[in-house]
């Protein structure tokens, strides 16, 4: 199977505007989550990781042409491309965009019309972003709930392994507006405080906004030292808005991923879980981790720093995991105090330094979808 290397990456988040910035802040236990009151998007106070000023991505040219969502994508891709030799104008470079809601916030401010529907269309955003960088190929858009980011990376790996492309630029973003916040509030899924993944007192998610980019390549000379080795997706076939009761299907995605990479449980050095801090998600993940025989492996959730960044989550959290591999340091699970899942899992609660070779990243989402992906040192 063709080896796939990471060439460069980026995170634009309330925590920082480059991968290195973000990682440094996480080492210092800095979180983007704050309580917000008196905002335009909610009458009630809420905790979320939102940009306080959009400085890093507001200076993008042709201001009026791009929405905030598109600017986030452009800012993230720009930084990653600047750090890579991969050329977007190369016919062998694919562009994959991951998002759940894109420009849906335009429904909140604009009058309904056919033109508005066209402007909201993810195809419009993806084309604007592709044109901004003069990508030779039409973009592929993945919109698969909270596994979108991992599925987009996996799609990039598959496109390269099929022989059609040598490189793939994968970028994910979501912004938090009334549309998304009201929906999660209506589900009573929003935590009353900063979220507490895997903790006994966890009571829901915080939402977060941000973007992440990962550039994959089959050319070893473009590599930054980390490989994306395998990945898998499964479906619970149980409930559209609640996770599996058994964790068997996430386990299926995990074991298929490990088998495809030729690795066993003892080869995994840490797991970056989805860890949304809802009662049911974290419990399901703990079950799946046990079914996969990974209960002793250090596991973290990054939701306590970024909140749930939806279509960007798989990218942002994978990029941090890759940085963890490079720096041999696992980031702790901010918000975790007292074990709150019924199955034993080794929740990483303080900075953990060790020689790290392989990282498993997982996610699950509405529609019953689960995804797993493996990153490792060359």
């Amino acid at each position: 199977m063709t080896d796939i290397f990471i060439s460069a990456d980026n995170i634009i988040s309330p925590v920082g505007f480059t991968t290195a910035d973000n990682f440094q802040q996480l080492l210092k236990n800095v979180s983007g989550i704050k309580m917000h009151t008196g905002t335009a998007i909610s009458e009630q106070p809420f905790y979320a990781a939102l940009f306080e000023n959009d400085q890093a991505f507001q200076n993008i040219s042709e201001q009026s042409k791009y929405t905030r969502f598109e600017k986030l994508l452009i800012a993230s891709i720009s930084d990653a491309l600047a750090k890579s030799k991969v050329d977007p104008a190369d016919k062998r470079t694919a562009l994959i965009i991951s998002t759940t809601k894109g420009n849906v916030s335009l429904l909140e401010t604009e009058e309904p019309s056919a033109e508005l529907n066209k402007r909201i269309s993810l195809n419009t955003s993806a084309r604007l972003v592709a044109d901004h960088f003069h990508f030779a190929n039409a973009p592929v858009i993945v919109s698969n709930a909270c596994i979108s980011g991992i599925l987009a990376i996996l799609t990039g790996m598959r496109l390269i392994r099929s022989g059609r492309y040598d490189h793939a630029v994968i970028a994910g973003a979501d912004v938090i507006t009334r549309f998304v916040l009201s929906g999660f509030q209506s589900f009573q899924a929003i935590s009353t405080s900063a979220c507490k993944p895997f903790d006994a007192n966890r009571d829901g998610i915080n939402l977060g906004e941000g973007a992440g980019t990962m550039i994959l390549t089959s050319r070893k000379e473009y590599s930054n030292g980390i490989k994306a080795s395998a990945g898998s997706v499964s479906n619970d076939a149980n409930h559209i808005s609640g996770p599996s009761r058994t964790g068997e299907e996430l386990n299926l995605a995990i074991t298929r991923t490990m088998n495809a990479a030729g690795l066993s449980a003892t080869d995994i050095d840490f797991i970056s879980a989805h860890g949304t801090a809802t009662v049911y998600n974290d419990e399901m993940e703990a079950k799946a981790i046990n079914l996969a025989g990974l209960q002793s492996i250090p596991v973290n959730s990054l939701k306590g720093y970024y909140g749930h960044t939806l279509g960007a989550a798989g990218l942002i959290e994978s990029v941090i995991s890759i940085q963890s591999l490079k720096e041999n340091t696992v980031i702790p699970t901010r918000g975790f105090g007292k074990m709150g899942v019924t199955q034993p899992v080794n929740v990483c609660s303080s900075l953990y330094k060790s020689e790290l070779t392989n990282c498993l990243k997982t996610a699950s989402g509405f529609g019953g979808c689960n995804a797993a992906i493996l990153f490792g040192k060359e």
Partner: protein
Amino acid sequence: MSKEKYITSSCIIAGQVIYKNGQPVFKCPATEPSEFLVSAYRHFALQYPKFHKMDNLAKLGWLANEVLLDGFDKEKYKPEDVGIVLSNASSSLDTDIKYYETVKSIPSPALFVYTLPNIVIGEISIRHQFKGENAFFIFNEFNAGFIEQYVSDLVNNNILQACICGWVEILGDSYKAALFLVEKDKTADSVIFTEENLNNIYQLHNG
């Protein structure tokens, strides 16, 4: 590795007509999408109360899949060996608009859950206990080349043994579903799974 695969069944829903393997099996002219979908559900005497809770995108995809799989022996396959790869142009915008209307009074969780395009994959998975690979992609128009490549890759690498794939699009009064069942063994009416055959079947019923 790249052995031939076959389209063993197809279902197109367009222009108030449902076609199975090219033959019309239900017509209900001059009706709105929601009326049309419920009429079809009744016509086929389907028994699935959850259907009525679904949004139009899920109803459309779910219904097309019921017609697609009529006669399909799913016992041939393990749950994890059957996958679903769907696509459309408008994501879940049809329901996004309806959900946002409720935000002005009381936000509806029952609608919010359908503001993701892959929920239709979840509904089909629940109905038939399919647990394999799934993915939802957005394209301007039906991208038979991409779907053929992506699904072939999954089947050739034995990640899937069978795959439901295609297009499920709805926005306002305009809708079209085109689902294809892809398997490794040919049947009496099957055609080879190629980009050209996907496009031929898709375009046959341009509604």
